[in-house]
C-alpha cells in the first residue's frame, strides 16, 4: 500500500487514487516474457504515465483546497522504468521518502478496494480516480491495462480493469461524488478488441467493485463524471520522451486556474466545478495543438453527472489565463500588455504570442513592429482561454 497522504477519517474528505503505468513487461519492449500476441497488438512502453500520475498526486497534496471536503488521502501506484520514491510536502509522511508500489493487477485491485472503503466512510466525501497508461475501448466497454497485462496468454484480460463495470459498481459506494479521469488510448488494435468483443461484457477483466442490483447505499443521487482524455477509438498522446501527457498537462493547468469558474460572483469568488472541466481541458489541448503543433485529441465526457465543486482556491486568488494573440503579419513585434497602471513589456517575437494573464477585465494589448506600425486589441481574461487579434486601432 502506498498511501502518500492521509488525515483523520471522521469527516467528509477527498480521497484520491492515482495510477500511472509506463512499464509493461509483457508488451513490446518490455523486460518480461512477451505475450504471444504482443507484436500483433503493437502496444509499447510508455514514457508519460508515471510522471503524469505523480504530478496529479502532487497537485492534490500541494494545492488542493476544499473546506467542505478537504484532502483526506492520496494513494499512488506507479510502474516506471526506474523506481523513485515520492516525497509528500505535507501530511504524516511530510518530507519523507515514500516507496511507491508498482501498478500490477494485484496492487491495482487492492488499491481500488481500499479507495472504495475509505469513500464508504462518509456520504459527503469525494472520490478522485486517475489512471494513466494503456487503455482500450471495445464498443461501449472501457478497459484499463495494469503493468502485468499480457502475463497470461490463456486469459488475456485477466490483468486489465473492466472500467465500465467499475464505474457502474461504484454506485455501491457511500460517497456520492466521484470523478474518474482516464488518460489512456481508446483505440486498441483490432487483434485485441475483436477478442474482447467476442467474449462480450468485461471479457474476463476485473470490475473490482462489481455492480449489484438494488445496492444503493444512499438516497442521494450519485454524481460521477468520467473524463476520457480522448475520443472513442482514438489515441492519446504525449510529447516523445516527455514526462507528462498532453491531457494531464492540460488537466493540471485547468486545476491551477484555467478551468476555474466565477459564475456566482464574477471576478471575485473562484471555484473549480466538474461540469466545465472537460470543456476547459479540451480548449487548452486545442490551444496547444494550434500553437505548438502537438497532436490533437478531443477529451470526452461520460457518466451520469451533474456538477460538484472539486477545488476552492484561497480567497482573492484570481486564476491565470492562457491568452493567444494573433496578428495578420508574422514579423517580430514587441508586445505591451496594460491593465490600469500595470504595464508588462515583452521582448520582440513573432505572432502568435502566447501569454498568461491574471483574470481581469479590460486588458489593452499593443504590438509594436519595427516599421513603426502598432496593432492593438482589448480583451477580458477569463477561463479557459482567450484569443485576441491585434488590429489597427485596437478593436476588441
Amino acid at each position, binding site marked *: 500500500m502506498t498511501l502518500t497522504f492521509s488525515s483523520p477519517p471522521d469527516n467528509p474528505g477527498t480521497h484520491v487514487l492515482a495510477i500511472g503505468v509506463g512499464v509493461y513487461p509483457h508488451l513490446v519492449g518490455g523486460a518480461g516474457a512477451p505475450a504471444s500476441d504482443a507484436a500483433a497488438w503493437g502496444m509499447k512502453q510508455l514514457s508519460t504515465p508515471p510522471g503524469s500520475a505523480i504530478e496529479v498526486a502532487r497537485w492534490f497534496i500541494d494545492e488542493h483546497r476544499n473546506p467542505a471536503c478537504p484532502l483526506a488521502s492520496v494513494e499512488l501506484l506507479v510502474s516506471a522504468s526506474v523506481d523513485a520514491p515520492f516525497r509528500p510536502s505535507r501530511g504524516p509522511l511530510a518530507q519523507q521518502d515514500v516507496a511507491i508500489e508498482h501498478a500490477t493487477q494485484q496492487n491495482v485491485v487492492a488499491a481500488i478496494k481500499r479507495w472504495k472503503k475509505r469513500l464508504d466512510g462518509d456520504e459527503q466525501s469525494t472520490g478522485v480516480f486517475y489512471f494513466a497508461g494503456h487503455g482500450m*475501448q*471495445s*464498443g*461501449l*466497454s472501457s478497459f484499463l491495462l495494469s503493468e502485468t497485462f499480457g502475463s497470461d496468454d490463456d486469459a488475456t484480460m485477466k490483468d486489465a480493469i473492466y472500467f*465500465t*463495470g467499475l464505474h*457502474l459498481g461504484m454506485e455501491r459506494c457511500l460517497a456520492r461524488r466521484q470523478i474518474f479521469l482516464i488518460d489512456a488510448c*481508446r*483505440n486498441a488494435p483490432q487483434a485485441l478488441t475483436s477478442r*474482447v*468483443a467476442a467474449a*462480450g*461484457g468485461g471479457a474476463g477483466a476485473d470490475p473490482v467493485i*462489481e*455492480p*449489484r*442490483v*438494488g445496492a444503493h447505499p444512499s438516497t442521494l*443521487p450519485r454524481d460521477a*463524471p468520467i*473524463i476520457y482524455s480522448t*475520443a*472513442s*477509438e*482514438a*489515441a492519446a498522446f504525449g510529447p516523445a520522451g516527455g514526462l507528462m501527457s498532453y491531457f494531464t498537462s492540460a488537466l493540471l493547468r485547468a486545476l491551477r486556474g484555467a478551468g476555474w*469558474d*466565477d*459564475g*456566482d*460572483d*464574477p*471576478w*471575485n469568488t473562484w471555484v473549480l*466545478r466538474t*461540469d*466545465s472541466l*472537460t*470543456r476547459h481541458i*479540451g*480548449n487548452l489541448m*486545442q490551444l496547444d*495543438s494550434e500553437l505548438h503543433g502537438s*497532436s*490533437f*485529441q*478531443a*477529451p*470526452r*465526457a*461520460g457518466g*451520469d*453527472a*451533474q*456538477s460538484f465543486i472539486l477545488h476552492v482556491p484561497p480567497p482573492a486568488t484570481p486564476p491565470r489565463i492562457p491568452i493567444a494573440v494573433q496578428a495578420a503579419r508574422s514579423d517580430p513585434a514587441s508586445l505591451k500588455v496594460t491593465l490600469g497602471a500595470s504595464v508588462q513589456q515583452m521582448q520582440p517575437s513573432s505572432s502568435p504570442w502566447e501569454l498568461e494573464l491574471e483574470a481581469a*477585465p479590460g486588458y489593452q494589448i499593443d504590438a509594436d513592429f519595427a516599421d513603426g506600425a502598432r496593432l492593438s486589441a482589448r480583451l*477580458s481574461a*477569463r477561463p479557459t482561454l482567450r484569443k485576441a487579434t491585434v488590429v489597427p486601432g485596437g478593436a*476588441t
Partner: protein
Amino acid sequence: MTQIDPAPTKGTLHLRVGSPFDVRLEGIAVDVVPLRAGLSAKHLDVAVGQDTTLEVEAGDYLIEARLPSGAVASATCSVTPASTSEALLPLPAPPHEWLAFTRLVARPERADRRARYDSQPWRPRTPADVQAGMAIVSARGEAWACPDGQSFVEPPGGRGRRVLCDLGTDERLSSCILRPDAGWPYTYDEQLFLRITPPCSQSSLLVLPVPWFLDAQLAPLQVLWTGGRIPAVIVQDPGVGAVLAYLDSGDTAAARRSADAIADKAERILFDKVKNPVAAAGGAYVLLRLGQLAKLHDWVGNLAAWYPALPDGAILRATQLLRTSPAAEVKEEVTRLLVRAAQGGYPVYTEGVRLLASSLRLLASDDAPAPQVADALKAAQSMEAHASADSMFTWLDE
C-alpha cells in the same frame, strides 16, 4: 415636503445572438458578466435570432454565448441608467446555408483534425465515393441502394417509405441530409437504418431517429462526416437540438447554467411524447443525465406502453424503476421491460444501449435472476460490443 426619487441605477439590455442565415435554435447558454466586481452575473437561455431583454445594473458587461458546438460568440456593452443598450453577438458564417444549423451544434473541424490520427482513416474524395457505399436497410434486412445524390429511394414491398439522400461536400466535410417525405405513413412498427460502407473498411449501421416530428412535420436529419470513422448525426430541431448537443459535447456546465430551463424543456419534450416519441426518449435521457428523476413522472411508462417498437421506452422505464424503487418490488417488471427491449430491435440512442446492458448486468448479478435474463444480456452485450461510444444515436459496426 418634497419627495425626491432616487436616481435610477439600472438600465435595459437588449441582446441578440445573430446568424447570417435564417436559422432557429433554442437553448443557447448566455453569460452576462459585469466587468467590475460587486455586480451579479446573469445566466440566460436564449434563442438564435430572437431578441432578449433584461434589466441590469448600469456598468460595462462582457456578454458571451456558448454554442453547443463549443464556439463562443462575445461582445462587450456599456449599460447606462434608465436607457437601453444593444448587444449583438454575431455567429460566424458557415460556408453554405445548408450548414447553418450544423455549425451551431457540431464542430466538424475537431473531428476532422482527430481523423488524421485514426488508424484507418476514411476520406471520401468525391460525392460518388460516398454514394457508392450508401444504403437504407430495414430491420427486416431489406436494403435499398442509394444510387445517386438526388434520388428518392423507393423501398420494395409498397409500404410507401422513401428517403431523399442529398449529398454535398465542401473542402472539409461530406454530408448526407435525409429528408423523409411529408406523406410518409410511419407506423412505429419498424426501424430504419442507414448503412455506410466505406471503401476497404467494414460497414456500419446507424439507427435512424425517425420519424422525428417537428411542428407536425418530419424534420430532416443530417449525417455529417469529415473523414473520421464516426459521423455526427444532427436532428435539425431548434427546440431539442441544443439540449442534446450540450450533453453530447460534455459541456454540461452550459446545461447547468440553464439547468432549470433545459430540464423544463426536456420535461416538455417528454410530455409531448405523442407528437414525437423519439424526441421524448431523448428528453428522458437528458433528465436522467441531469438527475431530474421527478420530471420523468410516469410518462416514460407511457412511452414504454404506447410505443413497444421503440426499445428506448422500455429501457427508460426500467431505469427509472431501478433508480427510484426498492429492487425487490420492481425486479419482475424491470426484467420484463429489459428482456422486451433486448429482443425488440436496437435502441435509437447509444445511451439506451449502455443502460440496457448495464441494467441487465445488474439483474444478472442477482442471486436468482429470471432465466430469460441471460439471453437478453447476451444480446445487449453484443450491441454494446459493436456500438460507438461517441455517437449520440446508435451506430453499430457490422
